[in-house]
């Protein structure tokens, strides 16, 4: 019922890298790709990202399972851009109110590739990183306050419970005669009521969890860590890989003459 990120069974190389170095590499690639709309930098990054798949233990089947809304969104974005962008070059399709030309298709394809190239690193990161290890790294290596990091981690576990609770409250309310079917107004009202019920339960659960954590000595005082968050040679490779992908994407686009910085020189 609960779908938690769980790495059991994933023994790929990148699961052993420090979450912080993986995060840095992802941020690097994403930032560079967000700077320019062009298909060259996006496709170069995309090719490298696909090559990294086996290292993260990700397969196309898994990607489609977890990331299909993102892929679909990128495809829809690409399609609408290619029919709505200003036309240039030979007209490919002419259907009255909208047309697709060579120029607009190129913009559209660029949009699609860029969408995928930006979304994939995050999917890659999630598929080879345990949230607990990420929290360890953020607190021990990035020196974020442990109260905040561990509190967030514990709250994330409750989120899974809340999804179950939402379903139960929905059924419990139907059993009281509150329909989730009917007119739009009725449905909105029902959803609001259900949200309130969930909020009450969430607050109760959260305060009970807070008591549990406090009773286990959680608080402001000094604390040790049972798990060491450490860097290894692998992390140097991860960072270098991130830098290389970002650098190659920019270089290729500049060399091909397609690099256009979005907000500079306007």
């Amino acid at each position: 019922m609960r779908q938690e990120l769980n790495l059991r069974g994933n023994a790929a190389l990148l699961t052993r890298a420090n979450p912080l170095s993986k995060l840095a590499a992802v941020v690097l690639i994403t930032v560079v790709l967000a700077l320019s709309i062009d298909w060259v930098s996006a496709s170069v990054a995309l090719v490298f990202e696909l090559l990294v798949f086996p290292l993260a233990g990700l397969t196309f089947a898994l990607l489609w399972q977890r990331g299909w809304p993102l892929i679909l969104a990128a495809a829809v974005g690409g399609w609408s851009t290619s029919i709505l962008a200003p036309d240039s070059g030979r007209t490919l399709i002419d259907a009255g109110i909208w047309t697709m030309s060579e120029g607009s298709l190129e913009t559209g394809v660029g949009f699609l590739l860029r969408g995928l190239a930006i979304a994939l690193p995050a999917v890659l990161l999630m598929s080879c990183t345990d949230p607990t290890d990420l929290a360890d790294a953020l607190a021990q290596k990035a020196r974020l306050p442990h109260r905040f990091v561990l509190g967030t981690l514990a709250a994330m576990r409750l989120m899974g419970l809340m999804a179950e609770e939402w379903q139960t409250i929905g059924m419990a309310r139907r059993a009281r005669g509150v329909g989730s079917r009917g007119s739009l107004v009725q449905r909105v009202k029902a959803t609001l009521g259900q949200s309130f019920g969930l909020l009450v339960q969430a607050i109760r659960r959260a305060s009970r969890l807070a008591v549990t954590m406090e009773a286990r000595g959680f608080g402001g005082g000094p604390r040790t860590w049972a798990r060491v968050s450490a860097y290894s040679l692998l992390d140097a490779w991860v960072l270098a890989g991130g830098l290389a992908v970002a650098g190659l994407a920019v270089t290729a686009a500049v060399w091909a003459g397609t690099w256009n910085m979005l907000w500079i020189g306007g």
Partner: protein
Amino acid sequence: MAAPSHAAAPHTVRPAAVTARGWGWRHAGRTRPAVQALDLDISPGERVLLLGPSGAGKSTLLHALAGVLGDVDDDGEAGESDESGSLLVDGGSPRGQRGRAGLMQQDPETQVVLSRVGDDVAFGAENLAVPREAIWPRVHEALADVGLSHLPLDHPTSALSGGQKQRLALAGILAMRPGLVLLDEPTANLDPAGVLEVRDAVARSLDKTGATLVVVEHRVSVWKDLVDRIVVLQPGNHIDPAVLLDGPPDQVLADARSMLISAGVWVPGYVPATRARAADVPPGTGDLLLAAEALAVSRQRPRRRGFRKIPPVPVQEGITAQVRAGQALTVTGPNGAGKSTFALTLAGLLEPVDGAVSATTALARGAGIDPCRWKAEQLIERIGTVFQEPEHQFVTGNVLDELLFGPRHLGHGAERVDELLERLRLTHLVDANPYTLSGGEKRRLSVATVLAASPQVLVLDEPTFGQDANTWAELASFLSELLDAGTAVVSVTHDAEFTAALGGTELKLAAEAGRP
């Protein structure tokens, strides 16, 4: 290599002493104190069972001893609270002694902090700044003490049963090496097997560490042989002391048996008297209302994998059952057998994975054969469902509106409401907010609200969980009246005495093979 951890453990725990002198506590925003004038001494290593009616301040005392009282209360409200007298652990304030006491609460879901078994046990020790090399031996030892050493350290905590979660919580407490173990109704949400699992784990670990124990629980028989002493508390007032009785278990139970029974405590060897059915109803008689045929059930909806729809794996399949007017059907079986899921499917709240639930014309009255397709208004006057957690079903701000909600929706008069208020002793609470009621009152209200719509079939999910003996007896008697009046009652329960009190047919679901 270090010596086996068992040999090293006992001398590392120093049992704690508890002293209360005229101690009292009032929660923020309340007019009456939760505890007043408490005088109590517990010597190191003593094991105490704390009893008393709801409202006697048992939980408040445990929270105070754990040093977590006052910051956040159960409603999430922080604010001005009031303390009087003194409550000391080892002569000092409990708040300043992190890790001296370990507290386990009732709801297993909130006793787990992290998502991997090993990390969760280590959490407390980390917070107490135990050196890293000392933490993992403690984790292994604690898991062995509670009988969970067969689990790998990266086992997901979400895959544990309720009893296992509570044992994991105990391991997390033991890893802190506390001198005082505090258990606040640790087994109220568990099935009978889970209750014994937790009790035995507590007994084993205390025998080893010698720590002081204070446990709050309704079911005396479970803890009687493990404790040295029973302390009975009473609700705070200005005249009487907070401690009503104090002594060895057998003596307290002998001296105060009738008093404890009238306070709703589950005294060993006592089953509350309940109303008998008016006439013996042989199985198979009564109008057939609802039938399940070759039913497979799951709480999950079909999953989407890309564009494909994948039906969920049923938690139980091949269930065949009949619901008849004036007949009780009790659904029993171990945890994870899909009892509640079956009941919710039968009640038209979940879609069957396979097979069918069909209503006969006597029940459907023109609404169609499949209860899952009925509109909410059609459903509630045919099948009423009482959920395990009453709060899930509250939809208004006071008790009277709550009862009028169903009839109003149906355009009925409220003719049954007064009768239900009277019968379930809720008349004095009509203006109260449902969320502020006691556990027993919430249970009675949730039954009353569902019955206000006059359903022909009543489905109850674990109606007796965590209830005191008085509420239990009231509920069983009330259901027997309903049965005599021709209502069909389907109940999911672990409670053998409840099953016996209702009679009728028992549907035993087996644990699904291959499930944890």
